């Protein structure tokens, strides 16, 4: 089959949309976090969804597979609710019924309304006003599962990464503290940001590390809000504005200059003693050299599920002599414009491959040569067991992130994994009972 439309050489690719928006295929790779996984980060909370059967099944079984069914309830919408009732009433009464029947008293309830609420003009303000009146001790987090909106506006996950911090209130500030908002994974202890803050006596708080509601509320006592994950940028910015916090967006990336620039910003805002950038870069060069020695000319393929900066990673690897053949992505972040331009010029034959184009269902996935995949989708599309099993950048950040990734690449190249068992599990890093 002619792969055109599903793959393209980077020098011929459009930016930021290298592929047309058409029918969509969904691969059997499920390590990405969805709104259920992210919502579960909020301690002492439960989630209640109000939607139709088909939409419900995906989320309720997500919760069950992560052994969190006890924190998940729902209200099913029937045809008659659309035709004869009003959605305000069914939503209010359904959520109330669930809360009255539950024996626990969660501090917060994430109520997820859906496309149907939007299209039928449901008065969500009235819904929440009434719920707050009936359950005054509970904080209702306004969440959305409305993917129909995501092509022209914010995605459900972007909205959730704001709403999940709505319960924070202004508090007495702890001077030497910062908080990361918007991420699913806590930054690694060795990450540049953690090391820099720790070296200067700063504490760093993050939602994934919060074990209780009280600990969660402490996030707003931080002097500075940070965001390192693109999907969290909108929410973190809004919360910083609402709570009058200093705020920095320091996305995880792979360019030495860009990383150094972000560290400089952080250093200046908090007036910190800086890291030794030259030593950091030298250590990265050594790590990349070591990885190159082991991996040699093994073909590398990588995907945008591994890390939100796949082109930046491809650029780093190609500029250090690695044989990168394909990057799997469906769109290109504006943050990667410079990397896209660089690759178009210096690696014009680099292949970009879609993951959702229909042809990807049947294009050949097996190869005779050994392939090292960086990411679950790259692994599945190439049927290789040699892969780095990580999603969404995990807790990697900065120069340390580059070095960690080098170690993971070496390990992946030397030890074959059970791709079939690993990539189908939902929410990499969460419990999985399958």
């Amino acid at each position, binding site marked *: 089959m002619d792969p055109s439309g599903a793959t393209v050489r980077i020098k011929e690719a459009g930016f930021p949309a290298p592929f047309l928006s058409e029918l969509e295929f969904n691969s059997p790779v499920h390590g990405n976090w969805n709104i259920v996984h992210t919502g579960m980060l909020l301690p002492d909370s439960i989630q209640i969804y109000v939607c139709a059967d088909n939409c*419900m099944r995906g989320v309720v079984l997500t919760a069950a597979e992560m052994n969190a069914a006890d924190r998940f309830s729902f209200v099913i919408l029937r045809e008659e609710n659309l035709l004869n009732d009003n959605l305000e009433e069914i939503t209010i009464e359904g959520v109330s019924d669930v809360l009255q029947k539950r024996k626990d008293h969660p501090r917060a309830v994430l109520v997820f309304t859906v*496309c149907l609420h939007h299209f039928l003009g449901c008065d969500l303000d009235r819904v929440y006003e009434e719920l707050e009146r009936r359950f005054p001790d509970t904080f209702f987090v306004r969440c959305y599962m409305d*993917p129909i909106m995501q092509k022209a506006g914010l995605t459900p996950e972007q909205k959730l990464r704001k709403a999940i911090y709505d319960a924070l209130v202004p508090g007495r500030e702890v001077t030497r503290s910062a908080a990361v908002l918007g991420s699913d994974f806590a930054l690694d202890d060795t990450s540049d940001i953690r090391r820099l803050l720790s070296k200067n006596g700063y504490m760093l708080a993050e939602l994934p590390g919060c074990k209780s509601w009280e600990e969660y509320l402490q996030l707003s006592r931080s002097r500075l809000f940070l965001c390192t994950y693109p999907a969290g940028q909108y929410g973190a910015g809004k919360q910083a504005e609402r709570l009058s916090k200093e705020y920095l967006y320091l996305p995880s990336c792979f360019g030495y200059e860009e990383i150094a620039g972000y560290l400089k910003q952080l250093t200046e805002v908090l007036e910190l003693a800086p890291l030794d950038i030259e030593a950091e870069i030298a250590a990265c060069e050594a790590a990349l050299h070591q990885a190159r020695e082991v991996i040699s000319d093994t073909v590398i393929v990588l995907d945008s599920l591994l890390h939100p900066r796949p082109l930046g990673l491809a650029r780093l690897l190609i500029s250090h002599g690695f044989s990168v053949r394909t990057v799997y992505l469906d769109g290109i972040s504006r943050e990667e414009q410079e990397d896209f331009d660089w690759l178009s010029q210096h690696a014009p034959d680099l292949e970009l491959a879609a993951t959702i184009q229909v042809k990807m269902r049947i294009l050949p996935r097996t190869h005779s040569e050994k392939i090292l995949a960086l990411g679950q989708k790259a692994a599945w599309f190439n049927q290789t067991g040699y892969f780095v099993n990580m999603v969404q950048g995990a807790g990697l950040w900065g120069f340390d992130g580059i070095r960690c990734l080098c170690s993971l690449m070496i390990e992946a190249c030397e030890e074959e994994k059970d791709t079939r068992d690993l990539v*189908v599990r939902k929410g990499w890093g969460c419990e999985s009972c399958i």
Partner: protein
Amino acid sequence: MRQSYRRIPVYTADVSGVCAALFELGGMTVMHDPSGCNSTYNTHDEIRWYDQDSLIFISGLSEMDAIMGNDEKLIHDTVKAARELHPAFIALANSPIPYMNGTDFPAIADIVQQETGIPSFAVATNGMHDYVCGVGRALAKIAELFTDPDAVCNNPRTVNLLGVTPLDFGPLSHVSRMKEVLEAYGWTVLSVWAMGDTRDTLKRAGEAAVNLVVSLSGLMAAEVLFEKFGTPYVIGTPIGGFTARLSAAMERAVKTKKSETAYRVCDRETSVPAYSGGEVTVIGEPVLSESLAAAIRLKVENPVRVLNPLEQGSAFLLPGDRTALGEEEMEAQLKGSQIIVADPLYRSICPQNAKFYALPHIAFSGRIFLKELPVFADLL
């Protein structure tokens, strides 16, 4: 409130049912949906997704296209994909928003067929009903459109199995075992709707002497095949000792040309006292559960009650058995039950002192208990 759930999930919805029914038949199925339907289907409802390529896609419906009634994009994208992938047929399935908008799917299917020359049809779904509805309607379409009208039956021991998807029966190896069990009774299985056989095999369904509706999902196709070929059907699933009764019912149907519900006849022929509160309760798909109940009665002569959790199927329950929709109603029905046979995710709403036998069901718990799925044919 009947619509609120605290602890148990919902069953697979109609949209996934359509996809599961058509998965192996060489067509292309398009779910008109923004996102999520495909992921839900291939993650939780479709155990073949990793290993078998099937052309099942979503349209990626956007807010603006929904508001403006831009059906042209769905038509264009479907036609383009069909021209590239050359499916044997095209099926369109609906989801809540296009349903609410009143999108005219049969008309869209007609246009797609005119533009591609590929047989195209819509299966009426909206994501608000359970899988039985979706599987049933999809298989009925196959029976209507793709079976050879000139087929003739030449062998009175031939049978088609209708209503077979992984949602109820698990992997193909379990289905093969069901075929073997029937073959041991002297039956030749011509086709299985729709696992393990191609569309060409299903095309010859009119050659069978009888159709066996092994789950409620096969009933609509059975009715179409009866109308088209006069083939009688028997309702029941081969399970343990009940298989002999089922085979006898199939023989009767071949002889009399009359359809029957095998476990109903079996119930009349046995002298087990009626369920009186307590004893064995089976929760599940009505045909499978009634067949299992019949096998239990034959084996241990115990009263057994079936609780049907699906919208359809009340008419196929034995007297005393009930449909219980939703968590609240099911929990109320289970009060006082002593022995319960059900999917493990029901355990949380069962009485604590009840003895529980796990009977995993993909259409309920998805892939969670995949490794523990029963081979129905070998139960009891």
